[in-house]
């Protein structure tokens, strides 16, 4: 019974992961090979068209091709999501490793800074930053990085703190290896699994954050084809042409769902305890 369940579950995950890959591949192919429409080409004669061969997803209120905008929105939303994630990891992990390895004053200082950042909810930071620096996707990214690096710093620190007491680290110190070498060659590889799992779970959240803040006008600015911004633009036409809201909404749901499933899959993959139990 249980074995059948697990088989089904892994199969489902594989299907979802394949779907993710196919989606990305399709977008790449579409965007680079058969992109026929300019995503911001306005043609008021062709506004609010239904599905057709010319416009598979129809057109929006300014006559722009929806499919093109949805797919380029993938580049924008997911691309910026990845970028924010990468930068958050690139900032958070080294800080966490150094804090955990050095301990003492350095540790306390860095972790208090992290606590200070943690005290603000991401939305608040984003609103304040766009108030100070003006609305725009770059400032939104900055806000996301400022909030998210803390998670990676804390994760890296806690792993390093437990690992650094082990004998192989003492051994490396006795062997006279430099602290730098110990941190990156002996400690860091332990972290990769944990970070990968957290990052893939975070990706969905970040995409959601970008879209929701763009929806309220703090992120990507029109005419950028960002899904949240598209939802906002489509609001007045919701009753007459609901498809304008359904497509970007579905796109967001699909990508967030897939990145969460990817996270779950990676978490199971790296779950050492489960391996031992089996």
């Amino acid at each position: 019974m249980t074995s059948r369940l697990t088989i089904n579950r892994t199969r489902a995950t594989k299907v979802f992961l394949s779907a993710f890959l196919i989606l990305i591949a399709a977008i790449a192919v579409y965007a680079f090979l058969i992109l026929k429409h300019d995503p911001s080409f306005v043609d008021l004669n062709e506004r609010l068209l239904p599905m057709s061969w010319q416009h598979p997803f129809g057109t929006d209120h300014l006559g722009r091709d929806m499919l093109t905008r949805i797919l380029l929105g993938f580049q924008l939303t997911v691309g910026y999501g990845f970028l924010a994630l990468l930068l958050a990891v690139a900032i958070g992990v080294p800080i966490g490793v150094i804090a955990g390895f050095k301990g003492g004053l350095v540790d306390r200082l860095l972790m208090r800074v992290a606590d200070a950042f943690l005290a603000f909810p991401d939305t608040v930071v984003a609103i304040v930053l766009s108030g100070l620096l003006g609305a725009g996707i770059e400032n939104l990214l900055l806000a996301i990085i400022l909030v998210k690096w803390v998670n990676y710093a804390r994760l890296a620190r806690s792993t390093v703190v437990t690992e650094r007491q082990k004998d192989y680290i003492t051994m490396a110190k006795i062997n006279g290896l430099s602290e730098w070498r110990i941190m990156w060659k002996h400690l860091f590889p332990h972290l990769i699994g944990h970070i990968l799992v957290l990052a893939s779970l975070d990706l969905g959240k970040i995409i959601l954050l970008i879209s929701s803040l763009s929806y309220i006008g703090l992120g990507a600015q029109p005419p950028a084809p960002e899904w949240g911004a598209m939802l906002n633009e489509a609001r007045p036409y919701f009753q007459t042409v609901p498809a304008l809201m359904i497509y970007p909404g579905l796109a967001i749901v699909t990508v967030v769902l897939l990145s969460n499933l990817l996270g779950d899959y990676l978490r199971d993959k790296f779950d050492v305890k489960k391996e031992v139990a089996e």
Partner: protein
Amino acid sequence: MTLLSVQNLTVQAGEVPLVKGISFDVQKGEWLAIIGQSGSGKSVSASAIGRLLAPNLKAQGKALYNGKDILQFGAKEMRRLRGTSISYIFQDYQGSFTSFHTIGRHFEEFLKAHFKLSKAQRREMAEQALESVGLQPEMYTRYPFQLSGGQLQRSSIALALLTKPDLVIADEPTAALDSISAAKVLRLLADLQQKTGCAMLFITHDLRHVRKHADQIIVMKEGEIVEKGDKQSVLDQPQHAYTRSLMAASPSLSAASQLLKGDDTSCVYCN
């Protein structure tokens, strides 16, 4: 000639003293055993000498190595000292190697950090070291989890003796091994000590281990040295009641050892 002179060493965890002002000397090339039960402060003392204490522990006093106080060394001097003059062997052989690096990579890193040698020279040195502890040179490319406990402990001994240190601090190197492997590792250590002429600071809770190989014995109890002297006098005429109780607690099969003399592997207690 005195190699290491520990003077009035104290280690404190906050207000709690773990080691209460101990002093002893290690002569060049001698085997000094520190014995005592768990919690007697013997491991902490050894860590203090190597500057390996956990951040919450504070060491005071002096540890003069060739006349220079280790406890005052800067980071750079400490690195040089650890690489070339003092090395450690641990109880936890499983944990002393980074699990995702090959055995060879540990040798490689170590040699790279301290010597200017070509890649081929480093490899050759490492393989020679592995052979000197009775391991095949093929172990160079193996990962720690592919080796048995005894093989791992041998590898860590090879690594510790690689640069011909003057002082080897062995912190219960055989405690996690089965008796037969422990006997073999002990004999190997004694052989290598003879060959390289290094001094050995050997920490153990087991009197059996010191009977055969030690020159000097220090008995520690609750952070203090209760007795020290050369092996014969401590073992034959223990002055302190604690030493006598330790000896009574150790299973000495002197009768059996007479019978089985010369067969180390079948009579592990004879050591």
